């Protein structure tokens, strides 16, 4: 009985909403529907792009969107996971809050991977999910799923709205929470009745204050003084930085800091592009597949200055052998990160946009030429043993590195590069050049295969004047390949570079090194990607010879629209250097 009632209600409601009198009525009575209130909130928050997929429980919002088409651009994706990754890409390239729509039930559960990814990579998102009518909650209604409980551990905040009167204030809170402090995803679940409900709308007020929420602290000077003293006394100081620099918009402040102190700076995968790659004090990448010098010298420096990074296990390697000799200064906006993995000698809790200039003011202007030279020596060794062969191979097989090298030459480091997860990701992050911030977009903490293609679409929408290249492996691309449909329909100019080694390469590498070459289910077949792209009316080609690389990449980059380029690379190439799991960063292997 209940189900039949619902259908009738739904039908009636839709008829009312569809009637031409409805819009007029709204204006006269200054009454609007919950759905309209959602969209009004977006406009007030400066949202210009929404990534989403409609369905039964979010239909009233989509119906309202029909009338807001001139103010809000909606990108119809092919799967909700694609929608949320696109929202992430948009947020990461634009620095704004990404907005995502999904319907109830499977629509909402399809967001889960993206929420987890955004949570661990601190990406600001506001996701709106439709939900069944409030009176049906808990009845196992059609497409009802307990989305609030499912998403609690992977959202910074979530909330269910059952009454339209709550919509303006809750959405204001949502945008405030998502975008401030350490950013993160917020999910708002809105029951269908609340979307349909008309209520007296008294305008939208942005939220700037929640009494139980302190996005950032007032920085205490004595911590800064203590940190500055440590840096000034240091003989071998080393900076390691993460995405906090980018999220805090503190790239300039960061550069001024390391330049004044003459401090070598190494980056985590998400910190990449916060400092130009060719900056003389940029000493490279940290962690499992990072550079030789910064890994080894982490265990030799006397003061380790961590800026906006969280000492992930892929960065630290074995924790009880990590930088034991060093005094650690940890700058972070999230107090829960301080002492979480690595005990800080001085905890500098605050927004690095504020703490870095305070610190810069107190540190001595200095150079550490001998210490920097040590990094150079390690770099030279890495060039000799690893990089030379990767970038200028002498065998017939193509390497991923040489493709990226040519890409660098053509883009001159000005492109946004979006990577997926695996060997190609490590190689790209190791060798890609970046001049501008917010140019490296990848799934770091979660390691979500299938991230790159949809994230690249979002990244392009977030930075329309920039070139966006998605570098993807043959495994990851098959996880979200349906988003070629989104590219086709929107005509968005995204370059897709598939580095195909005909394996799930990273797992294969581990199986080779740690499981006696027992290649268990890593031998993955690919479709004809060029034909698949053609089916989506996207041009492309596949190459396998060295002398084709430059031309093919040029064609891709110069093509007026989206383009897919598949490069067949060596099947069993490994990514080195490597810090094997369970080893200290100083035990990094070059081969």
């Amino acid at each position, binding site marked *: 009985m209940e189900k039949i009632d619902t259908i009738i209600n739904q039908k009636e409601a839709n008829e009312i909403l569809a009637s031409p009198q409805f819009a007029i009525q709204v204006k006269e009575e200054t009454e609007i529907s919950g759905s309209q209130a959602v969209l009004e909130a977006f406009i007030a928050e400066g949202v210009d792009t929404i990534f989403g997929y409609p369905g039964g429980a979010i239909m009233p919002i989509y119906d309202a969107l029909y009338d807001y088409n001139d103010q809000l651009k909606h990108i119809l994706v092919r799967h909700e996971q694609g929608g949320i990754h696109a929202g992430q890409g948009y947020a990461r390239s634009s620095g704004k809050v990404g907005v995502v729509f999904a319907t109830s039930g499977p629509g909402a559960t399809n967001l889960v991977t993206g929420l987890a990814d955004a949570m661990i990579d601190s990406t600001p998102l506001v996701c709106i999910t439709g939900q069944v009518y409030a009176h049906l909650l808990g009845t196992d209604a059609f497409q009802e799923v307990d989305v609030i409980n499912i998403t609690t551990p992977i959202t910074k905040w979530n909330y269910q709205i059952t009454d339209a009167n709550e919509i303006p204030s809750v959405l204001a809170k949502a945008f405030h929470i998502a975008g401030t402090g350490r950013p993160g995803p917020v999910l708002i679940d809105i029951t269908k009745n609340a979307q349909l409900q008309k209520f007296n709308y008294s305008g939208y007020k942005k939220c700037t204050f929640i009494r139980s929420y302190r996005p950032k602290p007032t920085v205490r000077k*004595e911590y800064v003084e203590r940190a500055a003293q440590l840096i000034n006394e240091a003989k071998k100081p080393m900076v390691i930085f993460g995405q906090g620099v980018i999220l805090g918009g503190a790239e300039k402040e960061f550069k001024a800091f390391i330049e004044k102190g003459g401090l070598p700076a190494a980056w985590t995968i998400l910190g990449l592009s916060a400092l130009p790659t060719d900056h003389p004090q940029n000493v490279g990448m940290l962690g499992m597949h990072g550079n030789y010098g910064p890994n080894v010298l982490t265990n030799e420096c006397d003061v380790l200055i961590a800026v906006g990074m969280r000492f992930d296990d892929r960065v630290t390697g074995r924790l009880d052998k990590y930088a034991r000799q060093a005094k650690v200064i940890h700058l972070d906006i999230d107090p*829960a990160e301080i002492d*979480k993995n690595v005990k800080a000698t001085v905890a500098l809790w605050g927004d690095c946009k504020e703490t870095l200039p305070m610190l810069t003011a107190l540190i001595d202007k200095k150079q550490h030429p001998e210490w920097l030279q040590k990094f150079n020596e390690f770099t030279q060794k890495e060039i000799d043993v690893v990089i030379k062969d990767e970038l200028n191979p002498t065998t017939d097989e193509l390497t991923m590195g040489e493709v990226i090298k040519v890409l660098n030459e053509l883009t001159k480091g000005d492109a946004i590069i979006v990577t997926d997860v695996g060997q190609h990701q490590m190689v790209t992050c190791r060798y890609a050049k970046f001049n501008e911030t917010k140019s490296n977009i990848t799934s770091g903490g979660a390691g979500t295969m299938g991230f790159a293609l949809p994230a690249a679409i979002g990244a392009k929408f977030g930075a329309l004047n920039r070139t966006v290249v998605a570098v993807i492996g043959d495994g990851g691309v098959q996880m979200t390949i349906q988003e070629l449909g989104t590219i086709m329909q929107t005509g968005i100019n995204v370059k897709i570079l598939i580095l195909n080694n005909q394996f799930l390469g990273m797992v294969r590498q581990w199986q080779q090194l740690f499981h006696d070459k027992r290649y268990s289910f890593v031998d993955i077949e690919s479709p004809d990607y060029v034909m698949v792209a053609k089916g989506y009316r996207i041009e492309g080609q596949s190459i396998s010879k060295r002398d084709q690389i430059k031309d093919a990449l040029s064609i891709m980059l110069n093509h007026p629209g989206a383009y897919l380029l598949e490069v067949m690379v060596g099947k069993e190439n490994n990514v080195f250097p490597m810090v094997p799991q369970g080893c200290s960063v100083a035990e990094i292997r070059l081969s």
Partner: protein
Amino acid sequence: MKKEFTITVYGENQIGLLNRIAIIFVRRKINIDTMNTSPSEIVGIHRFTILIDETEEVVRKVCRQIEKQVDVLKVYFNTEEDIVWQEMALYKVSTEQIAEKAKVERLLREFGARVVAITKDFTIFETTGHREETDKLVKVLEPYGLTEFVRSARIAIIKKSRGFHEKLKEFEQRAPGEELVENEFLNQRQGVFSM
């Protein structure tokens, strides 16, 4: 070394906050010994009292994760000596048994128990106190056929706390005083200023 910690959380009265707090323990496979949620000294603010057996380091980290939740105002953790705590227990025994065989009067006096209900069939005792006290009466009543036993979660008052009224006033100010903007766990950590 693991020991007993009592965690006190002040939070907004929001649906879902209980779950948000609980899953922080579940994720780390920490068993919650007891958990009580109740109103606090301030209308609209809930107080959670959580008892766990863990090392101080783990407790400190968990508390930071709890305090990070948007709807949480403040978290404290304390050991036994910092707090005054009580648990309440109810015991149901057969009236016939207890009247015939046990010296009820002595039980009541010795264990500070109260009789809260007597019927022809059963008698219900209540005691309030520390775990050892409530447990002792279980042992004493077991020979007489203890039909039911239930104990409440721990509730605790932090001895040195001056309540949450003043803190809340600071929370409600846009530019809070220095005491508040500092994170308790950062202030209390060892070695920040000592080298």
